[in-house]
């Protein structure tokens, strides 16, 4: 096995790992070696083609369809240079004060988190798109909300030079999305941090990481790793795990840390979601322009959030309920479709967790609680009202039976859309806001780390990603991940004497 020495190893290059890489880059000026390990590949700019299946295969774990153990929920998370920041829509919201205070983590101050969110919003060029860049799909959502007395809010987004390809979730083909792949990682590399792609962390040992570097498969997108393929043992003075809410707990479980940390892997939440479509009589602009410009936050009142969205043919087909002629008719109406994503604000509950199999395979266990089902049903009713208010003639609602509702049924939504129609395994549900598994808290009895990402009882091991969330964030998580990762980096720098000089 190849042997490498480093001062700090960061596992993961997404919102967490990328942020930490940049924040720790000044260490390299003192001769410290900082390594970032990314399981996925680094793509050339010309490889971002916007072709649905090819890009999903190149940028996501399991092509964006990682299936839970129950087989009733698919999870989408990035596996590429920049992690999920390369494939999200760039929506950038500050952490909600109510939620951060509700987490009740000693030492986690809301004002501190908010300040760091603002810092990264500025760094990532977060702003509101001008009116003339908003497409019909988004305008109709705002209009529908307005007509039923609800106030849609505009998403601040982290784009710079957006041409409106609508292909954000397939990696921006115009390099306009300011994820860690475009901002923090290049800055870190310019300062001397080394990023190694196609490098899968297999397990963590005492002050060491065991890594497998792979070669590209035939025809696979992406550059080869800068390291030769093979297994490596990297000795490090500090290890920061930032592999996301699925990857981080799984890696620590695979490494046996559950013996010290009984809460490891627990508390997984994900904002389970599905899409509704509304069919209009006339063609609208939907597959051009930024796809996610507005949202409706009903988290506190009703436990859900609605967001505009526009997906690609396969993902749209998969997310509509049913099949056959009715399904086909709707797909053929693509240029006239308005789309809304319905997200439930789930809670950390016993049983929803990450585990690993005897062979080390990652498993996600997730059951839909009655509260989540009710939230999805209420959200579906509200979304259907918005569609009809915006002028849709038909609405496809997964919790209606049959799922197609006509305008004449617009006053019967409460009767037609029923929570009883939520049938796991039939209703297509997916999630992309993956949180928890290495929660912050007080002691190893109730959590995995303290408020600064320090793993209880293991001073050289830190966490810096969404797995730190003790419960659901109830809003798009990226800026909050960056804020928490920034804290993890700051704590490591504060502890650097103890870590590096021992």
């Amino acid at each position: 096995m190849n042997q490498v020495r480093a001062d700090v190893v960061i596992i993961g290059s997404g919102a967490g790992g990328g942020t930490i890489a940049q924040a720790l880059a000044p260490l390299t000026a003192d001769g410290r070696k900082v390594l970032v390990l990314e399981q996925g590949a680094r793509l050339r700019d010309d490889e971002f083609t916007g072709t649905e299946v090819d890009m999903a295969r190149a940028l996501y774990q399991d092509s964006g369809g990682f299936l839970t153990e129950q087989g009733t929920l698919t999870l989408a998370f990035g596996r590429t240079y920049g992690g999920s920041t390369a494939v999200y829509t760039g929506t950038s919201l500050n952490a909600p004060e109510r939620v951060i205070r509700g987490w009740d983590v000693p030492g986690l101050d809301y004002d501190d988190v908010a300040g760091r969110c603002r810092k990264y919003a500025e760094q990532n060029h977060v702003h509101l798109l001008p009116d003339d860049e908003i497409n019909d799909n988004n305008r109709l959502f705002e209009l529908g909300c307005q007509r039923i007395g609800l106030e849609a809010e505009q998403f601040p987004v982290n784009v710079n030079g957006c041409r409106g390809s609508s292909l954000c979730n397939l990696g921006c083909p115009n390099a306009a999305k300011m994820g860690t792949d475009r901002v923090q990682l290049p800055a870190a590399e310019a300062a001397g941090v080394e990023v190694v792609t196609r490098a899968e962390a297999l397990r963590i040992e005492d002050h060491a990481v065991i890594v497998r570097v792979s070669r590209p498969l035939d025809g696979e997108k992406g550059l080869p790793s800068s390291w030769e393929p093979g297994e490596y043992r990297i000795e490090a003075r500090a290890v920061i795990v930032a592999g996301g809410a699925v990857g981080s707990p799984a890696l620590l479980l695979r490494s046996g840390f559950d013996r010290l940390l009984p809460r490891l892997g627990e508390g997984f939440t994900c904002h389970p979601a599905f899409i509704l479509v509304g069919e209009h009589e006339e063609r609208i602009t939907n597959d051009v322009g930024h796809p996610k410009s507005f949202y409706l936050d009903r988290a506190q009142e009703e436990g859900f959030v609605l967001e505009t969205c526009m997906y690609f043919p396969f993902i749209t087909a998969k997310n509509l309920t049913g099949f056959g002629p009715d399904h086909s008719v709707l797909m053929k109406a693509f240029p006239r479709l308005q789309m809304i994503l319905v997200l439930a604000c789930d809670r950390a509950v016993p049983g929803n967790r990450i585990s690993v199999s005897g062979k080390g395979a990652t498993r996600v266990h997730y059951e839909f609680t009655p509260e989540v089902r009710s939230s999805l049903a209420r959200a579906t009713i509200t979304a259907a009202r918005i569609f009809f208010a915006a002028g849709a003639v038909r609405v496809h609602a997964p919790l209606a039976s049959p799922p197609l509702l006509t305008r004449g049924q617009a006053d019967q939504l409460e009767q037609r859309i029923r929570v009883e129609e939520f049938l796991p395994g039939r209703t297509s549900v997916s999630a992309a806001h993956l949180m928890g598994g290495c929660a912050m808290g007080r002691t190893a009895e109730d959590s995995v780390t303290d408020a600064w990402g320090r793993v209880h009882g293991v001073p050289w091991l830190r966490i810096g990603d969404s797995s730190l969330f003790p419960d659901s964030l109830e809003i798009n998580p990226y800026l909050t991940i960056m804020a928490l990762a920034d804290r993890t980096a700051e704590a490591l720098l504060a502890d650097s004497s103890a870590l590096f000089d021992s």
Partner: protein
Amino acid sequence: MSVSLVVVRAQFRALCVAFVPESAELNEPGWRELESEVEQALADRPPAIQKQIALLIRILDLLARARHGSALAALPPASRRELLTRLQDSRWLLLRRGVWGLRTLAFLGYYSRPDTAASIGYRADARGWEARR
């Protein structure tokens, strides 16, 4: 197609037609294109998944024979859809998951084809607004 699925090709195509009626109009190169996408997707998954899918298709074929007295591929598409709808609404999670998985593969194969995208009017372009104005 992969080794496991090649032996159930006729049944798989019959299922695709039930899920996406337009796929009945595909010519042989079109079917090969669809199957190639499915094959590639399955290649990324554990080998056991391929076997499970082939097994599920065989079970559906047996159910068709038992219920309708005809092989799955020989059933009229409407009868195939009726059988699949019944299973999709089943009280057994395993059956619901099975139908969901098969429909996902059929949609993947059919809707990821560039011809299909064009036929449904999907026009996303890397040039964005510039390509429309």
